């Protein structure tokens, strides 16, 4: 059994939902990303304390016709890619600091 992975949105980003997609811009290099509907669900749920597997199980597998293994594999690839660009933080431990979205109170 693999250890749980935790994801949190970086604060060094700008982000806004645009329909079902999300625009994300890195504050460090102004690189712009768009996250599709499913990636946006993971992004919004990346609070630093909910394991990625739980996010995928609760928010993806309940909404889409996909197995946990397949969805988790895709989600791992996604968060790894976003972490490489510094817009998502990835850890084997819960992240004490969690990112903020515009829906949260600072």
């Amino acid at each position, binding site marked *: 059994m693999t250890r749980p992975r935790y994801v949190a949105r970086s604060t*060094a980003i*700008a982000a*806004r939902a645009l329909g079902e997609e999300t625009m994300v811009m890195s504050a460090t290099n102004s690189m*712009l990303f768009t996250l599709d509907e499913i990636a946006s669900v993971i992004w919004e749920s990346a609070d630093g304390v909910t394991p990625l597997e739980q996010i995928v199980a609760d928010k993806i597998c309940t909404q889409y016709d996909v197995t946990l293994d397949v969805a988790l594999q895709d989600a791992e690839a996604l968060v790894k890619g976003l972490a490489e660009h510094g817009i998502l933080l990835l850890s084997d431990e819960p992240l004490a600091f969690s990112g903020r979205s515009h829906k949260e109170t600072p």
Partner: protein
Amino acid sequence: MSGLAAEMTAKALKMGIPLSVQLDLTYRCNERCVHCYLDHHDHGEMTTTEIKDLLDQMAEAGVFYLTLSGGEILMRRDFFEILEHARARTFCVKLKTNGVLLREAEAERVRALGVESVQISVYSHRPEVHDAITKMPGSLRQSIEAARLLRRHGLHVVLSNVLMVHNVRDYHGVKALAAELGAQFLMDPTITPMMDGDRSILALNVDEAALREVFRNEEVAGNVEEFCAPPRSFDEEDLDMLPCSAGHTACYVSPYGDVYPCVQFPLPSGNVRRTKFADIWRDSPQLKEVRSITLGDMPTCSRCTHGKTCTRCPGLAFMEGNMRGPSHQDCEKSYARTGIACENLQAKKAARQPLPSGPLVQIQIWQPAPCTMPANAPDSHGVDAGLR
């Protein structure tokens, strides 16, 4: 605009989302630039609480790009509280400042808050020219120092160079300065009328010959052959297109909460102190009217042989009296680029119609009769001081 950004803008347009807002936090300023279009007196700026609430509303409405400008933004004691709130709402924040009040501590905070870019106005690389324009001795040195500090903190800095009669020969120097600082260089060749409609400052615009020279400079224009290519008229299928983003995916909010389609388009469209931002954006009759205008609705410009290549600004056209009409300043720019006068320009010249700006207005500025001088026009002493 990158492909992805353009794609997102197109999506925002389709969804009716105000993707981009310029919010002026104050009109107060520590400089008194000769070409400034603002009244610097405080007529009741929004409070910190009001601005924070507005930011919440704008985030909810989908605003992504937020430009905080003024006046001088650092004249507000609550500036960093506002900026912090904006970043907590994950806006992509751009700042416009003269940098005069920016020191190490401010530069560090701006960096820590993840601001996308900071634009600093630099009119010349020569203090005697820049400081005469800002009417603030030492301002060039302070603006450059601010740019250096911000660059040292790794921030994206843009040096904005507004071209006018006073500094027409200095853009090379500002561009070289930007390169030395590792900053981006941005030139704006248009002086716009004051927000209250006073057009006297248009006399500071450079003349057609100077504009032509600038437009033919590769350092500024890039591909000159392309930039100055012969004009083209609209194709039939272009006529359903929209003139610009003002009121469509962008708008402007003044320090008093007034909403306009753009900072350069002073059509009062509502006030956030009385109406929710989203309701103004969605329901304002003024914004609806602006949105209803397609290129085909513009009687002069839709038929103009320069239509497709012209940079017509609907806001400038509005300030000339008709948002569906031509913007004379853009007709002149198109002439300077292409060497061919459009029909509107030819007609104006043939009719010897008084132009919105011209030598007579210029004389009025530089040798004003005391009783006719506009209250907030530049005084001749300040301008003359360093420029001769």
